[in-house]
């Protein structure tokens, strides 16, 4: 794989993460437990759609074949998407969606920090914008985790189960493959081992404050980064892509 191909593939993974998480979040519109959370969820999802658009456009420019953000989003098949499995998981209840958000963003924050320092100027600029948004999201999610953990007996048990269930998807964030290795080497990209340590430290701090316990070391599922998704994913794409696919030549 050439350096250019590495950069495009890496950028698309980031874009897919942003888009797929946003798509799950917007399923929650009009279903939040209170009005203030409607505003927060919509606001954060908008940030992710914005990031996905910047990242797809950047990938399109790097590729140089005139592929638009919408072609990336709506005209690729399941196996061409390279998002983390964690992000495509169904929303479940408020605690499940919250834990997904919290675990991913605790990682993403450090990833973006590292990306600001990478040698690709476009990615570095996008990361610098995104990190401001994600810092804010992360504070919000951490506060909610503490409220649910240290709330009622019921909420503690419920969100502990969310944490236990989501944990198996976290390994994928730190398992570097050829693209991660090449991106680190050729573009001064993130060191995933170092990020794992920071992530663990941050997650442990909030989980402790929330009076929850960190799940035990366990078997981890992976495959999203290589295009092998869960059964849920095809339905997500079918819904998201249906208009573009039904009217392939139309402008919207």
């Amino acid at each position: 794989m050439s350096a250019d191909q590495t950069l495009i593939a890496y950028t698309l993974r980031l874009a897919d993460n942003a888009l797929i998480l946003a798509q799950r979040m917007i399923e929650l519109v009009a279903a939040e437990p209170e009005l203030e959370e409607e505003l927060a969820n919509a606001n954060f999802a908008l940030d992710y759609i914005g990031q996905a658009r910047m990242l797809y456009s950047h990938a399109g420019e790097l590729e140089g074949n005139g592929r638009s953000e919408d072609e990336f989003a709506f005209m690729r098949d399941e196996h061409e998407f390279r998002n983390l499995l964690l992000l495509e998981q169904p929303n479940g209840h408020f605690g499940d969606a919250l834990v997904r958000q919290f675990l991913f963003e605790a990682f993403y924050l450090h990833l973006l920090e590292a990306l600001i320092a990478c040698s690709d100027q476009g990615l570095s600029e996008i990361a610098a914008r995104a990190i401001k948004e994600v810092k804010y999201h992360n504070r919000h999610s951490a506060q909610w985790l503490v409220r649910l953990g240290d709330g009622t007996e019921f909420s503690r048990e419920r969100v502990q189960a969310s944490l236990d269930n989501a944990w198996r998807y976290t390994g994928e964030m730190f398992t570097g493959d050829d693209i991660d290795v090449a991106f680190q080497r050729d573009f001064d990209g993130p060191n995933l081992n170092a990020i794992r340590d920071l992530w663990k430290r941050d997650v442990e701090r909030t989980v402790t404050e929330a009076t929850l316990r960190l799940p035990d070391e366990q078997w981890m599922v992976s495959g999203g980064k290589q295009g092998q998704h869960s059964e849920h994913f095809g339905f997500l794409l079918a819904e998201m892509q249906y208009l573009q696919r039904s009217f392939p030549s139309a402008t919207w």
Partner: protein
Amino acid sequence: MYTQGLDQAGNDKQSGVETAEQLAAFQKRVDAEEKIEAKDWMPEAYRRTLIRQISQHAHSEIIGMQPEGNWLTRAPSLKRKAILLAKVQDEAGHGLYLYSAAETLGVSRDQMVADLLSGKAKYSSIFNYPTLTWADIGAIGWLVDGAAIMNQIPLCRCSYGPYARAMVRVCKEESFHQRQGFDIMLTLCRGTAAQKAMAQDALNRWWWPSLMMFGPNDTESKHSAQSMAWKIKRFSNDELRQKFVDVTVQQAEFLGIRVPDDELSFDPESGHYTFGEIDWQEFIDVVAGNGPCNKQRLEKRQYAHNEGEWVRAAAQAYASKQAARAAA
């Protein structure tokens, strides 16, 4: 603004403690275009009329998130998805300011929400129609937000200060929504034959319900005279509806789609369009709960509220623990 139910609900009996002097002094302030503020004396019926109107408006913003939210996951481009999400977020924000404005009149948000969930409170009938195609998102922005603006611009001068100020902010955002909706329609009408057909179908289904948004004819509108005297209302239902028809018919011509009314014609003498009779039975049915989506909309709200119960309970328990810790 979605306050049409105003004319159906409620029955304001004035309590006996209000003197003729108080009422006259209040009317004098209103006539002088002074803003009435939360702490000022006001007739009980004025207060109750405003609570009903503002809370209905707030509920409409919240329920209105559903028909539009229905296309969020299927929006046909990332740009349209972002615009629609921003719009739905604005509507949640409108709900929030309006609940706050109503709270200044001494009713709690919890009470208003409880009235919505129990089916006691009304919201605009327009949101009880389904969004069946992407063009419906265009039609809602163009027609429904368009009608809302017609209704709401005069409310920016409403005699009750907190409501008037909330409306100034809301109106700015509604006019964005209207333009974005029109832009969706324009793109469809300039697109393929199938897209244009989709736009026409949406206009066919949304035209008459949009006209109903202005409420009953003036001859049927019970509360209007009092609301006008109090300067809560500035124009009658029929005046606003006429204004909407005059503007919107020309926009439909520009789009190249047909308004579904055989009786529609321009009257050069008055400078207005004359239009056919609204199916008032349909309006009455939908307001009474028998529209295509009334049950679905309310059930979704109830479900979200019930599913969120444990989350709100946890937040409350945590807050009390924190307060106890701080006190210790």
